[in-house]
């Protein structure tokens, strides 16, 4: 099967209090906590999507990274965009899992909440992005120890070569504890300047 015809069209990262798109920094904010930083990013990027504030930390991160990337694509939202979403991370939804566990740990202060529990699944952030961009497309969430370019490469090729999707929004969205967050997303399709190879994925991730 030929895997040579696909390209990385664009890429985005949110880490170390910086948001960058295709290698250029769009926004940085040195001094604040994750919560403050992500809110500042939302404002700076002029997102205007009130549902954002109900999301958990992981969904906020994934949502903003996807928004920065997809906004830049100037998609025609009148017609359908068959963009699959393939995400991965190491901590799954553990940040929210810990919050739910805290709410049930003591019988004396027992307060489980559906608004928290719904986010105890990593793929909820895929749902949030799908809703915003009306993506009725293939989607899956994988868990790996570390960023796994091999897997993302194989799975994107599979979806594109079997015509399950026209493009793949792909990458790593991690939120573990307060200072441990990182999003790196990229868009794969048959257009672009950077060849879709494992090496190029790894290089972009590490820059």
């Amino acid at each position: 099967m030929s895997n040579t015809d696909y390209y990385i069209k664009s890429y985005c990262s949110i880490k170390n209090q910086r948001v960058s798109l295709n290698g250029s920094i769009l926004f940085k904010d040195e001094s604040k906590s994750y919560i403050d930083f992500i809110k500042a990013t939302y404002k700076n990027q002029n997102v205007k999507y009130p549902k954002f504030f109900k999301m958990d930390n992981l969904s906020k991160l994934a949502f903003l990274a996807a928004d920065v990337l997809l906004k830049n694509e100037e998609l025609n939202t009148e017609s359908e965009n068959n963009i699959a979403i393939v995400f991965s991370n190491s901590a799954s939804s553990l940040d929210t899992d810990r919050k739910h566990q805290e709410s049930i740990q003591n019988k004396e202060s027992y307060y489980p909440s559906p608004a928290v529990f719904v986010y105890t699944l990593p793929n909820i952030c895929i749902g949030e992005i799908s809703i915003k961009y009306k993506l009725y497309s293939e989607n899956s969430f994988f868990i790996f120890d570390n960023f796994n370019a091999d897997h993302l490469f194989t799975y994107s090729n599979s979806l594109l070569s079997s015509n399950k999707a026209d493009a793949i929004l792909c990458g790593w969205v991690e939120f573990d504890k307060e200072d441990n967050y990182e999003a790196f997303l990229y868009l794969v399709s048959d257009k672009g300047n950077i060849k879709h190879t494992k090496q190029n994925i790894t290089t972009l991730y590490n820059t």
Partner: protein
Amino acid sequence: MTDILISHNNIISSLGFTSESVVKNIHNEISGLQFIDDQAILPEPFYTSLVPTDKLQLAFNKLNPKKDYTRLEQMMITSLDKVIMSSKIDLNNRVGLIISTTKGNIDALDNDNPFPKERAYLSELGKQVKDFFGFKNDAIVVSNACVSGILAVAIAKRYIEQGVYDHVFITSGDVITEFILSGFNSFQALSNQPCKPYDKNRSGINIGEVAASVLVTNESRNLPAETVKILGEGSCNDANHISGPSRTGEGLLRSMASAFEQSGVLPNEIDYISAHGTATLFNDEMEAIAFNRMQLEQVPLNSLKGYFGHSLGASGLVETIVGMHSIKNNTLYKSLGFETLGVTKPINVIKQTTVKKLRTFLKTASGFGGCNTAVIFQINN
């Protein structure tokens, strides 16, 4: 193109520790659900199905474990061992491992759990299973809510098609924990009665505990009689709501359409649908709408949740295995708990276990995050 097959299989559950014993119990309309009234677990009484601990321990200890394993790891390893042994496949670098789970060892987060909290990382679960058997490749962990089990089958097929692997072992499972029960209970989704999928008098979900394992392979030798071909698959999003099923069944419809297109099979060639049927009003209604839109309303259909409850990350896989045995046995199994149609569109719920020639079946599942998966299987001959 070579056929991709789903072959050797095992189920560890309240209804037995082999697929055959589980299917025999289903044939006899025996449910594995039991009533639990224990305030230490949940303030309200509920129904569930549990893997019997003493039997699990006995089976697991026969594998000579060298250290301590969590309950979920014991279930998955015991189940996967049977599949590896019967497949006689050498675990070389052409063999992949997929773990399907929604919450993994989430009970390790509990302060009273003897395992370190780090055990709750899903890659840790993958490592434990990988190392126990000595797989050469790292586990691919799929955690995509309640479609994980059936999505894992689609992913295995895609990896084989891409030429990365020749064989992929899948093991799937979730354990009954206070974590999960309290969460579903906060949604007021749990039933204090045995669940009644698609029924007018349904009262909600039962969560159950299962581990299920299969081999997906391009190898045509040493296959069990229940082996089926995986013809096509799709996994599409509702783009509608993060916890509520779509009112139009859009994502499920698109998943099925994608699977049909790839398989070359037409809706009127489907002999049986193994549906999701959680026994919540919105889920059952959504499925009925989607099946009608796909013109599948006359195809015999069941939900197996009345036998095991909803086994989360394992449900799609355990239900696929029962579907494979349905084809082998040419038998449509009763959708336990169903009496009177309780959805607004017509669907053909199986009221009585019936012998019928079967060739092709469709498995579907839907879950939180708006995810849906459909896979079409056909008899291998």
